[in-house]
């Protein structure tokens, strides 16, 4: 026994040391990724971005519900009504647009609320099943009917319109420029020509920047918190992203600021199955109703309105974007 113990002793020490070193490193990894990666996303609700960011229950209660005549038998709407739940494709990490609250699992934001209102319009209840999608999979998910609709700041483009049908546009935003708070050399996107610029991977900035700032070099990061971190660490002189996202980042993180005005107009549409003209007309009718009765404005004020300066905008005209 004593011999066994002696022989085992040193080996065990080495193994223990290895395990504890690995554990320490793993913890360090968790620690710094949450302090770095989570800084924008994590502290956004904590900083109380203009109220709760949650739409009041009364807005859902007063939201319109389609009459039986609007839902013909055999249509997509009728099938959704029968299931009692609207299946949508959306992100879970877009602050103020579609972000999951880790404490209760609820998905909050402009896109998420719009989806709930559409579900209410069809089924009478705000039941939404959210499938997490990437920008790479939106078209495929819609054409294979794995989701009924995509609410994902989905910019309407003629190329995409060949694959999917777009209802809307239901919101319009644009790309803007954020820089470090102490930087006074950059005033607009024109000052970015020839500089290194941080963009979000798979965002419209990737394709717009070469025209707006010729000769600029792009560095793309997968998530918004990573891009903000990269900006504060000086991996690029500026971060080009949708204004709504930048505004919420700048509010949560005083180390960065938004400069100039948006330099593009991004019309966002609700992605639908390409061959379902009936459903598209139905969704467009619903958009017109909620825009007319003020529900749209209430959703905007509760979410994006908490960080974007100025008055509530008028929603873009349905069908105004090329491809919608």
């Amino acid at each position, binding site marked *: 026994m004593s011999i066994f113990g002696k022989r085992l002793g*040193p080996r065990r020490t*080495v193994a223990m040391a290895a*395990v504890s070193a690995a554990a320490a490193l793993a913890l360090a990894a968790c620690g710094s990724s949450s302090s770095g990666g989570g800084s924008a996303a994590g502290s956004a609700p904590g900083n109380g971005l203009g109220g709760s960011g949650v739409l009041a229950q009364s807005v859902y209660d007063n939201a319109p519900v389609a009459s039986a005549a609007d839902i013909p038998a055999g249509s997509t709407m009728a099938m959704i009504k029968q299931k009692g739940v609207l299946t949508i494709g959306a992100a879970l990490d877009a602050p103020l647009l579609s972000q999951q609250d880790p404490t209760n699992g609820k998905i909050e934001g402009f896109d998420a609320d719009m989806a709930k209102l559409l579900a209410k319009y069809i089924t009478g209840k705000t039941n939404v099943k959210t499938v997490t999608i990437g920008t790479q999979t939106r078209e495929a998910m819609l054409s294979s009917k794995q989701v009924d609709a995509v609410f994902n700041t989905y910019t309407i483009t003629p190329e995409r319109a060949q694959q999917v049908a777009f209802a809307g546009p239901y919101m319009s935003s644009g790309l803007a420029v954020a820089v470090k708070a102490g930087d006074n050399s950059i005033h607009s996107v024109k000052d970015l020509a020839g500089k290194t610029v941080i963009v979000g*991977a*798979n965002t419209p900035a990737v394709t717009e920047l070469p025209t707006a700032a010729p000769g600029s070099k792009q560095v793309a990061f*997968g998530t918004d918190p990573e891009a903000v971190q990269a900006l504060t660490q*000086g991996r690029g002189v500026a971060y080009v992203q949708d204004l709504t996202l930048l505004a919420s980042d700048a509010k949560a993180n005083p180390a960065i600021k938004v400069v100039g005005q948006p330099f593009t107009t991004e019309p966002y549409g609700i992605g639908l199955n390409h061959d379902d003209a009936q459903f598209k007309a139905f969704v467009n009718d619903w958009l017109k109703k909620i825009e007319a009765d003020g529900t749209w404005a209430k959703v905007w004020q509760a979410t994006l309105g908490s960080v974007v300066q100025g008055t509530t905008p008028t929603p873009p005209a349905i069908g105004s974007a090329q491809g919608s």
Partner: protein
Amino acid sequence: MNALTGHLSELGHGVVTTVELTVVTTIAALLIGIIVAILRITPVPMLRGIGLVYVEVLQNLPLLALLVLFVFALPQIGITFPLFTSAAIVIACYEGAYMAEAIRAGINTVAVGQAEAARAIGLTFSQSLRHVILPQALRAVIQPIGNICIALLMNTSLAAAVGVVELTQAANNVNLVEAQPIEVFTGAGIAYMLMALIIGFTTGRLERKLAIVR
């Protein structure tokens, strides 16, 4: 097919970056692997411990976590590498741990008698490693090393997450314009497959030429 043919230069740049990253990291990972494998068999307990800790730590952490940690945490203490260099260092260190284990397995296939004989004729530890053990050990594990190279090639796609525009990121960028995910990612997949086949074919040739038939 227009989605692919219209963007050959973007995708081509992506392929070049992927190949560069794969070649650089394979060479570095092989060197790291040999060094760590030697550490793990030295007679000095402390060096053995260092080798063990290196392998266990790097093998048991996800590569993506390591990449994000390296790219975003190091600048906090004032060390900033360019993104390509960062990705290359992390992937080389990570795959080096796997290489080390494969090479150590190869060393274990060399009979103990060979090491004893090498020491008996007066070779030092490093001489016996260089002239007797490693040449035989490496020949025994050409196939596993080839497999690690293929895994490494696939893992380079994670560099996209930290801003390196390699093939996967280039495909993402093309898809953003064209909205043809099936064509674009099938094309990228075929490119990865061809590169993996080249590695597999080379490994097979090398093995037939170099393997020791016992």
